[in-house]
């Protein structure tokens, strides 16, 4: 509110100041000037009260009206406005010009756009904290079957995170990163998609893959980098990927997947597929150049892509207050000409409904949609991080307990009489057992064979790599103790 008032106050001041100033005479005596051809005057004379001049070269090429007339009229108009202009600009209907990019009308006031809307953009929500649907809320119906599967997968993701995290702590895998607190985002967004939709993840969205049928064994194989890992043990744990499940392989560099998603979406459109691309990213990711490139490309290419931002408040130790000064992320869609929505990321039904609608619009209308899900990173950034160094423990606790998306959703599911406490404990017991089993199998499995070090660099192994492989084999024969025994040579 205060910000809004300030913005209004400052524009009124600006307006008054503009009136008090006399119109500036044209510095070039009213003649069209060749300054754009490289004379020493770097810019056209500023005219208070008029919008900035369009780039002259372009105007000249298009045979647009002369600079002189344009500038002259503006100053004269500003003077006229001084006398009789009502608060809100020109009375006359013809004070608009077809600029490249569309017709723009003029105002006599010097109005700066405020830096914000004043009030923060509100957040779409379906379930209240007690898991009851808010009266009047509109959401996409989910069948009992889908609703239960969503719940089961959210719990599965949570258990998977806990056990893999612990496995890392015990030194069994080299790294891990949880999705704690973002289970609803993971699972509900996945549930609203079709399997033909192409997913381009950041790294905190393994639930999407889980929903699509990636087995606990497949997750474990990747984390252990064994011979069944589709990535052939080459990448760190959690860098999952599956061609079968239309889930592009995770890449650590932040935000690089966003422009890829636009390209993928464009391909879907050209192939007239009933599918979109969806890309996930964090609040931190929105600062990278690739974010901006991707949004702009998507808008210009009319690409059916859903940009899904998990705004969890933190990028490692950096809070969003040090990441951006805009009202979060959703607002930026508008600047690029992209429709967007802000949604409660800890409300599974809201996430589900928003993604469902976004997907329909993206495909039917051939356009990008931006979703900003507000949430909180309940876990440490990763196993390399201790977040109590930079944020209060009770803040974490609050989000872990009072705001937990799984318990909220469970209340709704149980409120529908779809789920019982007995089923709950049976589910948790079963998933835990399956996971421990999967870990044992994954751990026992040999690593991918040595030869895979040199494959996939290119489609075929070039001669330099063949030679390096041969020499390396000789070295291994000579110094077997230097090399791990679980990698078959």
């Amino acid at each position, binding site marked *: 509110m205060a910000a809004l008032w300030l913005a209004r106050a400052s524009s009124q001041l600006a307006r008054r100041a503009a009136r008090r100033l006399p119109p500036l005479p044209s510095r070039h005596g009213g003649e069209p000037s060749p300054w754009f051809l490289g004379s020493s005057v770097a810019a056209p004379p500023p005219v208070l009260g008029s919008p900035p001049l369009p780039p002259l070269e372009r105007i000249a090429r298009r045979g647009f009206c002369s600079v002189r007339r344009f500038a002259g009229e503006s100053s004269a108009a500003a003077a006229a406005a001084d006398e009789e202009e009502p608060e809100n600009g020109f009375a006359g209907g013809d004070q608009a010009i077809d600029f490249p990019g569309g017709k723009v009308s003029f105002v006599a006031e010097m109005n700066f756009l405020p830096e914000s809307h004043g009030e923060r953009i509100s957040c779409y929500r379906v379930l209240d904290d007690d898991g009851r649907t808010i009266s009047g809320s509109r959401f996409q119906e989910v069948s009992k079957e889908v609703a239960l599967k969503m719940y089961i997968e959210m719990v599965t993701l949570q258990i998977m995170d806990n056990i893999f995290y612990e496995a890392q702590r015990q030194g*069994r895998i*080299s790294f891990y990163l949880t999705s704690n607190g973002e289970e609803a985002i993971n699972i509900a967004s996945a549930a609203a998609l079709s399997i033909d939709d192409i997913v381009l993840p950041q790294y905190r969205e393994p639930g999407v893959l889980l929903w699509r049928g990636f087995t606990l064994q497949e997750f474990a194989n990747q984390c252990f980098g064994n011979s069944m890992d589709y990535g052939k043990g*080459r990448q760190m744990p959690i860098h999952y990927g599956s061609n079968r499940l239309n889930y592009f392989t995770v890449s650590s560099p932040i935000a690089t997947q966003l422009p890829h998603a636009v390209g993928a979406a464009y391909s879907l459109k050209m192939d007239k597929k009933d599918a979109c691309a969806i890309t996930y990213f964090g609040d931190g990711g929105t600062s*990278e150049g690739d974010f901006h490139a991707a949004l702009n490309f998507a808008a210009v290419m009319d690409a059916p892509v859903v940009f899904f931002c998990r705004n969890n408040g933190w990028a490692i*130790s950096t809070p969003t207050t040090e990441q951006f000064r805009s009202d979060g992320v959703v607002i930026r869609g508008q600047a690029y000409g992209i429709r967007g929505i802000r949604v409660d990321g800890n409300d599974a039904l809201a996430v589900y409904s928003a993604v469902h609608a976004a997907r329909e619009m993206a495909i039917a209308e051939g356009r990008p949609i931006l979703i900003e899900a507000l949430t909180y990173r309940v876990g440490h950034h990763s196993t390399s991080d201790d977040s109590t160094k930079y944020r209060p423990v009770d803040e974490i606790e609050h989000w872990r307990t009072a705001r937990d998306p799984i318990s909220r959703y469970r209340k709704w599911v149980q409120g529908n009489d779809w789920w019982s406490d007995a089923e709950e404990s049976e589910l948790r017991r079963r998933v835990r057992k399956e996971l421990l089993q999967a870990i044992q199998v994954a*751990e026992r499995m040999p690593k991918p064979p040595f030869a895979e070090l040199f494959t996939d660099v290119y489609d075929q192994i070039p001669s330099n*790599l063949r030679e*390096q492989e041969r020499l390396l084999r000789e070295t291994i024969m000579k110094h077997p103790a230097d090399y791990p025994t679980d*990698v078959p040579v």
Partner: protein
Amino acid sequence: MAARALREAGRRRGWAAEVGRRCFSGGSAGAAVAEPKEGVAEGGKAVNLFTAVNQALHIALDTDPRAYVFGEDVGFGGVFRCTTGLADRFGKSRVFNTPLCEQGIAGFAIGLAAMGNRAIAEIQFADYIFPAFDQIVNEAAKFRYRSGNEFNCGGLTIRTPYGAVGHGGHYHSQSPEAFFCHVPGLKVVIPRSPREAKGLLLASIRDPNPVVFFEPKWLYRLAVEEVPEEDYMLPLSQAEVIRKGSDITLIGWGAQLAVLKEACEDAAKDGVSCELIDLKTLIPWDKETVEASVKKTGKLLVSHEAPITGGFGAEIAASIAERCFQRLEAPVARVCGVDTPFPLVYEPFYMPTKNKVLDAIKATVNY
């Protein structure tokens, strides 16, 4: 609960906790590289490499009110703890987090430096420096030249951790120094130990040219040596003979020096006398020291973690072939990473290990 069940399952199968192991040769001795040198005050507390970097940053900020330190997560001390305590001591306007944007960090740093400040920017991992590549290559490197010295951004220093750690995979392990060596206008510096890191970093920060300063992250905690507490600088573009020898010259930089040092010791047991040189500054590099050594030994081995093809070792080999052609008794040997992306489970195979170096020493000496 889960923890116990996991552990029990592990015991039953007799699993060893072997994550992060460096079971291949040449992985043990970060600290072994450090030796007392001329020109630097002796003594000081034994500290690790990240603490030495931290000391240098404290001094840089303390001695120059126009010095700034910034980058992703720098405010709370950085993900490698190199910037610990700086924000508290010098305030948030001189030591601060930036948004997650490497091109922004580099571009901002260039502008800051161009106004006569010391901009000390951190890129969280060298693997993530590429979004900043355009700013570094096309802007920082050419700022002085393209303006006819009207402007310069010599106050710019970009610090970034590089190299293998045993479990970093593709994107937490790379050694991209050669890309930057290919850009006239930049200096590239890589220290091998805590004492070197402090002196070379202070020299880089105060050098009137943009410097990319790669820190061997494997040594951040591992390498410990006595570091003088006071303000001191070590000269750029001066290589150092850290071990004298007569049969072959070995040259490297950063973490690889530890591997080379071990190879020297093993070779000595076989009666081969190696001369070991730390290049320290890759661009502009000290050809004279290397040349003098090769003229004496007649043989040269270059070693780095980056892939062999197009690595900086190739430049050294070519230059020395030009300068010492008549004196070379064997082809210049290169022991480097293989020409693949940096692989997780294959890291022990990928690395230029001590035994690979030792084999190459023998082959070269017996050529």
